[in-house]
């Protein structure tokens, strides 16, 4: 997550980051709809397994593999275990793509 100070710092960069962030969340929403077989999904950064009935340990593995495939990198086990919600996943994707 960006600190408030960092956000206040470089406006131009922040805009670019926000653009990318919205693209990532858009793509992630599509992936989650497919993986969890949802009719629709209102994306929020604090979405987690507690909010989605179909999100269990098995579909979580499918989710991780789908993210790896869509963004073209591999997530380590410790990275996966460190995630508490979808927003943190977006942060991680941004870091990996940077």
């Amino acid at each position, binding site marked *: 997550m960006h600190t408030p100070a960092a956000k206040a710092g470089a406006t131009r960069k922040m805009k670019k980051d926000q653009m990318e962030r919205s693209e990532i969340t858009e793509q992630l929403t599509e992936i989650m*709809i*497919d*993986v969890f*077989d949802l*009719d629709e999904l209102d994306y929020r950064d604090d979405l987690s397994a507690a909010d989605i009935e179909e999100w269990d*340990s*098995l579909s979580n*593995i*499918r989710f991780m*593999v*789908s993210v790896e*495939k869509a963004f073209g990198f591999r997530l*380590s*086990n410790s990275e996966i275990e460190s995630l508490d919600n979808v927003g943190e996943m977006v942060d991680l994707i941004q870091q990996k793509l940077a």
Partner: protein
Amino acid sequence: MSDVLALPWLLPAPADFRARVRALKAADAVTAADVVALAAYGLDLSQLGSLGKIVDARRDDLGAEGRLRPVLLGIAATHTLDLVAEALPATALRHGLLVDTVQTDYGQLAQAVLDPASSLATAKPDFVLLALDAGALGLARPQFEAEAAEAAVQSALDYVASLRDGVRANIGAGVVLHTLATPAESLFGSYDARVPGSVRWLIARFNQRLAQEIAGDADLLLDMAALAETVGLARWHDPLRWHDAKMPCALDAIPLYADHLSRLLAAARGLSRKCLVLDLDNTLWGGIIGDDGVDGIKLGQGSARGEAHLAVQSLALDLRRRGIILAVCSKNEEAAALIPFREHDEMVLKEDHISVFVANWTDKATNLKAIAQALNIGTDALVFLDDNPAERERVRQELPEVAVPEVGDEPSDYVRLLSLAGYFEAVAFNDEDRKRADMYQANAQRASALQKVGNLDEYLASLDMECTIAPFDDLGRARIAQLINKSNQFNLTTRRYTEADVAAIQADPAKFTMQVRLVDRFGDNGMISVVIFDRGEQAWHCDTWLMSCRVLGRRVEEAVLAHVAQAAKSAGAARLTGEYIPTPKNVLVEKHFEKLGFAQIGDREGGGTQWALDLASYASPDLPMQIDAKTAGQTVPA
């Protein structure tokens, strides 16, 4: 050719896949055709899961429709097969099956199989997959003493055998075993192959001996080792998923795993494809015979293109040798189409390898129907190989039940794609298979004889038929079970029995059984009819009556009736009774009993009709064949 894990012989999933699944979810009624159409694409794991949920939700309706064959698969595994189980219901639709699964609890494999009161046993699955990994079998670590190495393999085989026996004895289900995938890692490097007791050595040894041990059994064997090698071991194995969740393979490979498992189950149910229909121009040879002439087409050694087409022909011929019928369906003048078969030195396929040869300008869907009709098989038994995407699309639209591999425009890929698709999955290979193509050949000749003779009685008399009727015996059992499981059209009750069931029926003195063979002047048709009656004091009741459609209209059924009528009469029974249980495929025999002189005595609960024949007033007819009836105790010549 795209990635093997994407099932490249299938069309990729359409952009509106999700919308179509959603439409089905909301629909009032869902038919087998709806779900099968979506399953026909190369779906990923999530897409298979979504479609699978529709199948689960509509299972009763889909089952009642009768187009898909229901199979309950028990899964007893030492690792996580939940995602395979999730992928199976949708995957199996491609192979004509309506699959449901029941899994053992984690770590409860042996209890589930060995305890007749376990939840697995009480679910009464049709098959049980015994999925044990190398670790669970004690083969994941090296054994450097030669004796210990052999002992480790022996003890793994013994364990599998005890579980296999448990499935048979306590659950009464068919057994599905699998070979072990070789690990991607080595210990010595290349030298692993030479060290008795290296993990690679142990696994190779286990796989080889497992296949030997079950030779001749009805057990099914999924060759996971070959599957993993085809994918590539470093891609097949995903160590992170193994350590994290005991996934036996990479998630990407699960759709392929599920497809291989489905085609094996379908083969056990007699649903594998029977006939390969080949296009000619740019499929069997490069170029267009009508334009390029016999000297201008590309075929044979010396050019990549010519060798690629030669490889297609060699595969077709090898398939024919194992019992797959070959047909040709080409847009051509027949005279031109035949020239390469007659005049080109490098043609591997000859005219007489082709059971039905259709070259004309009619649309291919119509021609495919005619080919199926000439062979007396369903269009759902056809595979159609054509380089032309427009022809493929047309056939898919008109006849969705025909398998049309997506082969692209590179002929070098055709052999691999056809093989990857697994249309001709087998669970046995016997003399009947070896002779089948010739039998169908002879059938085509018979059809033309019919045209020449014109009069049916004269035609039948001209066939010099010899019909052999004998009770079930050990020698015939595999073929009896095969016929019982794959005959759909001429089948009065469509009851399916396993080989074990057939053995029990054979041993049961309360059953009267018949296996019928027919030879004629064109060749041996092999076993063509199977009949089971329950002997009652007053009435003998027909449990099963089926016949191969190859010998339709030969009056074999009358010979069968004469035989059972005589036996019942001498046993003191007063009548024969039978029933017709309708299915989507057996309308052919709706009037079977009526035609044989039975009187209708009522309707059957749940659909169908009931019939009886008074033996006192029955007289056996004169038949245009020589009948050789054998009684129990006599052996039947193979």
